[in-house]
């Protein structure tokens, strides 16, 4: 059965990426690698990593990449997002971070970054950096269940994988419902709706990543270097 590895927050760190690839080789049975954004960051030169993501070495899993919050900030600053600039980045980390981010990526790599997608839909799963509402949407274990349900509903999926918070978590919608009454010129009707059985999964960041088996719906949270053969802290 196919198994996915979901990774994020590499932030230009080729050594980290190679460690993850080694980890996946040792685990075996992983056939698809998704990188859910934040390939780049302000702290180190990202060109070597970007080169490798585009041209994998023999024996490595071919990564399928999305853009994340850091890519979105850089693309905005360089005019790829219309009028928008990297103001959120500037406000949070200052002008120096904006400049460092620009330093981290050669102009020749921008076309590839600009072509990255916002999200993937695989089977009944949405794979996103933030959420269906925004690339910067920080969903976590403490997020409002109403908000999580809304983000699932917008994509019409049963599983939403998100990376933005950096946390590894699973929030399963397990029950509940709502009543509504609609009145219009034709009359009034009552509607009853139950909470659908859906799940939001935080995949982690950097050394912490997630394995998912879509056949059995089994999730396993891993940390690179965790004892080989250990099944990680998984739960269905």
């Amino acid at each position, binding site marked *: 059965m196919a198994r996915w590895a979901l990774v994020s927050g590499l932030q230009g760190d080729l050594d980290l990426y190679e460690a993850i690839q080694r980890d996946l080789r040792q685990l075996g049975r992983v056939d698809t690698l998704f990188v859910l954004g934040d390939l780049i960051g302000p702290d180190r030169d990202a060109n070597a990593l970007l080169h490798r993501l585009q041209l994998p070495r023999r024996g490595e899993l071919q990564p399928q990449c999305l853009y994340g919050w850091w890519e979105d900030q850089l693309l905005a600053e360089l005019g790829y997002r*219309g009028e928008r600039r990297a103001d959120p980045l500037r406000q949070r980390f200052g002008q120096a971070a904006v400049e460092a981010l620009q330093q981290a990526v050669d102009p020749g790599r921008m076309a590839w970054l600009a072509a990255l997608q916002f999200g993937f839909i695989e089977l009944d799963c949405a794979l996103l950096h933030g959420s269906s509402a925004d690339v910067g949407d920080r969903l976590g*274990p403490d997020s*409002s*269940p*109403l*908000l*999580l*349900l*809304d983000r699932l*509903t*917008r994509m*019409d999926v049963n599983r939403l994988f998100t990376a933005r918070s950096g*946390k*590894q*978590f*699973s*929030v*399963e*919608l*397990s*029950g*509940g*419902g*709502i*009543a*509504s*009454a*609609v*009145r*219009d*010129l*034709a009359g009034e009707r009552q*509607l009853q*709706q139950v*909470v659908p059985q859906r799940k939001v999964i935080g995949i*982690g960041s950097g050394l*912490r990543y997630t394995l998912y088996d879509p056949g059995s719906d089994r999730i396993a*949270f891993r940390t690179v270097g965790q004892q080989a053969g250990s099944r990680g*802290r998984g*739960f269905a």
Partner: protein
Amino acid sequence: MAHAVISCLHANLAALEAVLADIDQLGIATITCLGDLVGYGPQPNEVVTLVRERAIPCCQGCWDEDIIEGLNSCECSYPSQLAERRGHLAHQWTADQLSETNKAFLASLPMTLRRDRLLFVHGSPNSQHEYLLPDMDAFAALERVHTADADTLFCGHTHRPYVRELRDGVIRVRVQTVSDQSAAIEREMPLSVRRIINAGSVGEPRHGNTHATYVVHDEATGSVEIRAVPYDLERTCRAIVEAGLPPVFAWRLRHGFEYAERADDASHVCER
């Protein structure tokens, strides 16, 4: 105190005059308008001028925005190529007709208006282009009101008036984190009662007949009345033809069909 909420006037002067007369006759002094003052209809300047003269607070609709910002509706907001071509034609005609003063007025309109726990928007708090249809997913509908920190949300844009009350809501979740070695934690979120009130359309009704619609809300009692007002439809149809707009616009209005059919996807959000 009762107040009236009107929306989607679409440059239909006869319909607006009839609705304002109806409001006056009810003795209601407070009126709020949810945008789309212009678009498709034949009297954009007359309608904007009348709204300004009556000093009616308005939020900006998608048509008002497009007339100011230039045509930038995403293509997917039109349900067909035919609807898109007609929309573009109406846009161009309206932009050519509107005076600079009236354009400046439309440009000055805010996206939302708020009075205490009442929020007024054109489409949804997320976007002027989002349709909140009466049967859309109840949790998604409630999320729009909840996230906007309101109890009652007034919207338009769908051209069909309705009142929807969302109650007895609860969501239960099972949360598992890596740092927490213990078993999954169960949590429960009770949801407060919220209301969505759609004001329908004054100038381009689509509710089964041709009457102009709007709503009257009484804050003290919480009651909502959906009003349907007959107006001199033929006066507007003649004005459409005399203005040189496509005669099929008059035919559609006369039969209670929208000029361009609405997009049905309630979850669609324009990503521009």
